[in-house]
């Protein structure tokens, strides 16, 4: 029957250390390395071709053009590296970007386990940011140890509510979660715009669609003087550890996996697929809500229109790149975070279009999702299950 179903959770105990080791050093890591190399290689060709100096040097012949191209690529990629891991500041930027990516990635990974595809990250991020932000600026007089956790929890709850709805609708009426999450994304985008036009929310005396500033007592503290990385990354890692436990070690996690892999057998074993669907989507919503909250009470400090743009979609990329596992999601969140931070530096220092970073990112994922392509490119045996399935289709 379903011999092509996704891998089962570890059957016997394997320490987190072993798993991390496997994730970092295992065959799939080598594959990831090759994939990154291949993508950067293709990116270099595009970069060299599109660089103005190459085109100019082409007038002098092929040789000078090659040199010019190579130097353009060298400058761009050294900026990429510098900007992502080259300094403490760069690392800080990588972590800032990774915070949100990890959380939204987990928001996709959790339902994936239960056979559900959460495209609703964006709407859930909005809800989390709105509710968390509102608690952050509207509730006054609390000390930081109370106010900040309150805002974070509120963000989680806000996201959870928006995640719960598609789960509930699916369980009750069979409405497909892909439809309802897409629709909720759009709906919440407009709700966000509307809320930001309310004078109650806006900064006093101004009519820009920007919310009031989150109070200092609800702001995530910065970790290092002068750097933007804040306690959000710690929150993300703690949450990831919890999700690791939840998916791979908790009884509910087994329920999720069983329902995802074979709902009939799960039912026969006494599990409740409907309840599991609701649980998975609610947890997912909470995770994305935390991402929104971490952004608003952390980096941004205020709610702005479009603050969530693309975050839900990034989460899908991160989760799929991480093959739906928790450790994988965290690592790919860091990788894509580094690409974001490095891409920005690339633009700033060598004038490379940001879109090129997006293309490189897509290529990396292509090569990871289809090991056969890398194998064909490098003529090596990648001893990873060819085209392993990560998602489980539409289910129903």
């Amino acid at each position, binding site marked *: 029957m379903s011999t092509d179903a996704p891998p*089962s959770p570890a059957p016997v105990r394997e320490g987190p250390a072993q798993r991390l080791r496997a994730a970092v050093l295992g065959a799939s890591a080598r594959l990831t390395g090759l994939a990154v190399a291949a993508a950067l290689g293709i990116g270099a060709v595009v970069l060299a071709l599109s660089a103005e100096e190459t085109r100019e040097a082409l007038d002098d012949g092929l040789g000078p053009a090659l040199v010019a191209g190579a130097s353009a690529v060298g400058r761009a990629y050294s900026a990429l590296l510098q900007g992502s891991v080259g300094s403490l500041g760069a690392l800080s930027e990588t972590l800032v970007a990774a915070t949100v990516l990890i959380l939204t990635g987990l928001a996709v990974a959790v339902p994936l386990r239960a056979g559900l595809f959460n495209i609703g990250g964006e709407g859930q991020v909005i809800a989390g940011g709105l509710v968390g932000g509102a608690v952050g600026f509207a509730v006054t007089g609390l000390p930081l140890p109370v106010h900040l956790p309150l805002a974070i929890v509120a963000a989680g709850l806000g996201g959870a509510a928006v995640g719960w709805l598609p789960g509930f609708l699916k369980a009750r009426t069979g409405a497909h979660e892909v439809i309802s999450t897409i629709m909720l994304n759009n709906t919440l985008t407009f709700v966000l715009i509307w809320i930001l036009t309310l004078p109650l929310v806006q900064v006093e005396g101004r009519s820009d669609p920007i919310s009031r500033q989150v109070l200092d007592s609800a702001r995530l503290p910065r970790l290092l003087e002068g750097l933007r990385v804040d306690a959000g990354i710690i929150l993300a890692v703690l949450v990831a550890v919890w999700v690791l436990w939840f998916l791979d070690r*908790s*009884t509910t996690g*087994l329920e999720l996996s069983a329902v995802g892999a*074979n709902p009939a057998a799960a039912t*026969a074993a006494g599990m409740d697929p409907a309840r599991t669907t609701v649980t998975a989507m609610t947890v997912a919503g909470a995770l994305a809500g935390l991402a929104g909250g971490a952004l608003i009470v952390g980096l941004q400090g205020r709610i702005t229109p479009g603050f969530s743009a693309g975050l839900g979609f990034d989460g899908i990329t991160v989760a799929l790149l991480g093959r739906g596992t928790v450790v994988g999601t965290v690592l790919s969140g860091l990788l894509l975070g580094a690409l974001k931070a490095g891409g920005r530096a690339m633009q700033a220092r060598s004038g490379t279009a940001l879109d090129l970073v997006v293309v490189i990112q897509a290529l990396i994922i292509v090569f990871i999702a289809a090991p056969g392509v890398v194998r064909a490119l490098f003529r090596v045996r990648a001893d990873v299950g060819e085209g392993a399935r990560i998602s489980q289709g539409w289910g129903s």
Partner: protein
Amino acid sequence: MRLELRGITKRFPGVVANDHVDLTVEPSEVLGLLGENGAGKSTLMNILYGLTSADEGEILLDGRPHVFADPGDAIAAGIGMVHQHFMLVPVFTVAENILLGAEPLDRLGRFDRGRARDAVLATAERFGLPVDPDARVEDLPVGLQQRVEILKALYRDARLLILDEPTAVLTPQEADGLFESIRGFRAAGRSVIFISHKLREHHAIADRITVLRRGRTVGTIPAAEADAQELATMMVGRPVVLVVDRAPAAPGEPVLEVRALGVEDPPGTALVADVDLTVHRGEIVGIAGVEGNGQTPLVEAVTGLRPVTAGEVLLRGESIVGRSRRDILRAGVGHIPEDRYTDGVVASFSIADNLALTLWDDERFSNGRTRDFDAVAESARRVVADFDIRTPSIATTAGSLSGGNQQKVVVAREFDRPIDLLVAAQPTRGVDVGSIEYLHQQIVAKRDEGTAVLLVSSELDEIQALSDRIAVMFRGRLVGPFPAPVAKEALGLMMAGVDPAEALGGRAA
């Protein structure tokens, strides 16, 4: 057509499914193919049909070597195959399924439904296998689905027909009908390769029997000379006890009481009506019946998979109507579902996780809400040893086990937790004789421990071998139970709806 396979070898990672297999089928011959679960029968047939390629060996048809790159080649060479798992598109009609790949077109290039119907009806007529060409396959009983599969092969004018475990899902009557057809093919000069785990059926239909064990040919003997015990020994490699050794029952107090039970499907059609039944500690009550007569809904209602629409179900005197499946299982009900592939195991999970599946959140396998992997692993190792589940490790996925071993996983899981009532539906379907022997022994042992057992099987031999009392289901109603033994003919009559007094009286007369 004369078929000869020479030295066929097929290796899968870690397994040699076929190891230099030789085999011949003469024209107008039915060759029985026998072997344990996982012996390599289906693999061999898949090679013959072009679905898989052999690593070594050759296929000769009428003395000439053939290479089948895909089923199209095999079909063209006159080979037809009815697969162990049906190769039918459930949402298509009978005619669409039969003509798929060989569709008649009208002048506009459309799929010509009229001609398709006619073609199906003509083929059905010719071979005496009536079907409704416009019925949707998923709405048909399995027996008819099988008929569609056979017609698919016959429509393509198969001169060698491969039947891979065709009777596993058939009722005895349906099987008899199939045998009648097979005799017809043989008379018409066609050859048949017939795979079954039921020795009786090989006797009934095969001319010669080839036995496979662990991928190798053990031998070929004329069916007339084959003796069941000898075949079983050839197959398993050791003597097999074919008759269950069973002491008389010592029934205790009632465990399961079903009173005036009614079950309806969502549109409101009665599936089960007015069923009364009591199962006591230490006895096995068998329910015989042609499939589709309400056994499945009855079992589902009793085990909490389907809502009860009328009546009562009591477990140890307490009503379990309306309680969740989980509560019912935890209250001491064990259930071996009839479809192990869909309901029994999660194929992608490890054996260990599957063995813990019905107690996934029980404190035996968890500390609070955290799973206790040590307990899961330890228990799995013990159970795998106790139940002789053949697997390289407890971390192996259940989906990679052979059917018999998968069934053992399901049985072991239910037996390894405290249960007062065991509901076993078709527990040995598709399982080889060696495993049947073992599963039967286990069920009897469970009874002897004082468990109440409700056994549902369409296999009359199984019902008779295990049951202390026997009931028959017909059109949603239960007849009996009667104390065992009940004569096979009497059961057969009641399964066909004959009044019990008449059926049993008929025996007395």
